């Protein structure tokens, strides 16, 4: 992917450029508001990552201005202003996601993938990964033709994973996406939920489908 990074702190910018390069992404950098807006308008990016407190303005206004010009490049705000109200403001301005500094790089990469794929999400009614099949209409799950009975929350968890098949989803993404919670409980609740789901899906089958991504989250894939 080609990603526009709008960040004024050279250190933070370098980490982003280096980290994204490791993940196989190309980056173009802007160090202030005007440059960021100009590059954003120029276009040609798969996504943009914008800091909020920039020399010359608020990164929020860059995205708002792009949206006003019908430029829909997926945008993630990266900011030290991490409170819920800031977050609401960010999403309202047309941002697709919002990550608070200090952030986990893996979290950023996972969300970047999520916002860029979101556009491709088709209106499928049956999701498949390997021999696992999730029917969204009848709300049934089958593996190799055998029906697996899931609790409603387990179904929603699996559905979220399947919609992001092949991508890493982090615990916070799951909390937000499945439970609509914007906080992380003290206990690693998601891990407990996931191990229960995994038992149901994988018991009696040889190939694991749900993979733990060390330090960041989970990924469902057939390998």
């Amino acid at each position, binding site marked *: 992917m080609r990603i526009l990074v709008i960040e004024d702190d050279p250190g933070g910018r370098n980490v982003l450029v280096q980290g994204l390069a490791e993940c196989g992404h190309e980056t173009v950098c802007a160090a202030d508001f005007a440059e960021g807006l100009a590059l954003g308008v120029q276009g040609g990016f798969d996504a943009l990552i914008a800091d909020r407190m920039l020399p010359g303005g608020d990164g929020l206004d860059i995205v708002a201005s792009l949206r006003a010009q019908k430029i829909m490049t997926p945008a993630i705000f990266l900011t030290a202003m991490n*409170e*819920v*109200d800031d977050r*609401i403001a960010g999403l309202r301005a047309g941002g697709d996601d919002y990550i608070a500094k200090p952030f986990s790089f893996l979290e950023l990469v996972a969300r970047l993938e999520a916002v860029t794929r979101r556009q491709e999400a088709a209106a499928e009614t049956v999701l498949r990964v390997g021999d696992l099949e999730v029917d969204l209409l009848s709300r049934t799950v089958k593996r190799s033709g055998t029906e697996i009975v899931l609790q409603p929350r387990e179904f929603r968890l699996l559905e979220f994973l399947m919609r992001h098949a092949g991508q890493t989803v982090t615990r916070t993404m799951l909390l937000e996406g499945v439970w609509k919670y914007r*906080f992380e409980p*003290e206990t690693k*609740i998601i891990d407990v*939920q996931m191990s*229960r789901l995994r038992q149901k899906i994988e018991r009696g089958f040889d190939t694991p489908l749900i993979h733990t991504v060390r330090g960041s989250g989970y990924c469902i894939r057939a390998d």
Partner: protein
Amino acid sequence: MRISLSQTTTFRLVVYACLAFMAVGGVVLAFLYWSMLSVIDSQIEGALSREVSDMTAAYAKGGYERLRRTVADRASPHQDTMRIYMLIGPGGAATGNLETWPEGAPQPGQTAGIELPHAARMARVRTLVFADGSRLLVGRALTERTNFQLIVRRSLLSALAANLLLGAAAGTMLALYARRRLGQINATAEEVFEGDLSKRIAVGEGGDEYDHVAQNINAMLDRIQSLVATVRGVTENIAHDLRTPLNRLRGRLEVALMAPRSPEDYQAALKRAISDSETIVDTFNGILKIARIKAGALALPRERVDLAEVAEELADLYQVFAEESGVTVEMRLPPRGGGEGSVFVLGDPHLISQAAANLLDNAIKYSPPGGKVTVTAVKAGDGVSLTVADNGPGIPAAMRTAILDRFVRLDAAAGKQGFGLGLSLVSAVAEWHGARLELADNAPGLRASLLFPAAPAAS
């Protein structure tokens, strides 16, 4: 800075009030004065006209002799001394109560004000001449009129003087009072400015406008002081809570570099370092979040939140964790979505969820295997309560208040995750919602209740 009394607003206001009072009083008095004078003057003119017609009639009836008798009669010392008569007969004989024909007497048929000789008093006189050449002067002394003028002038002057004196006295007193009251406010402001945030303005019992200002300023100072205390607390807590994990992180990295290691060992060290830094970030964010909620800096809209819904969704989230921990969670909730016994509060659903999650998280974590956690949402009096009760070790009564104020950790629960920060957040969220967090003994265990004011009925 000390300002002179005459510069104060109060003093100037009193002076203006006095001037205005004097102006109005002056106008009223002047009007009275002129009206009274014109009444007196027209009475005098009327009296003179009657004298003239009486005298003319006397002369017509009985000639000079009759006129002379009338004059002598009216001018006799037994009569009113205010009346003035002077008749000079054809032969030059004088009758009347004046010694001579006064100088400055007007032409016949005319009226004039003159000064009477020897008497040093003013009079209004009229003259007339009869056919036989005799001259008559009738008049009225103006003593009463002059006295009236004198009285009015004197009272005007004394009123003026009294007004000025009283005004100056009242102005000075009021200005002194105002200066004293404002002086207290200013002195306190200066002390606060110098850095003593605990100073407060003395509030009188009268409840006047100064007391009002003082109360408001004091309330403002209370708020500022508590905000400053929060900031100080946050700074101290950040320093305290972050120093240890930062130290551990640094130590880990340093130890990892001390000797050559295999890539796997390096990876393991780095992963542990990342996990340490995650703890640091979590703590940091937690403290900041609590501080922001406590400072009232969250600009979140308040909406109607159904506690039954919040609790049910949390139960769903925590169900598996509870099962794995061997703890039963029992929900005692009214049906969600309104109706009889519904438990709506006004607030932010995410904050309330997080607060409730922290309570539930703690309750499950501290419950022994086989334990039971009860989540209850009910109407309680005017409000609504959300209670999470467990039968774990509980919190000693002495610790309960401390736990709400500071980000303390309970040593009694060693081995389990810290729980001070979680409850501090619950307490901050409660405060933001105008709710109260109560910690009670569940005998055994902890019973944590959030007591919210009920939301107004949906419109």
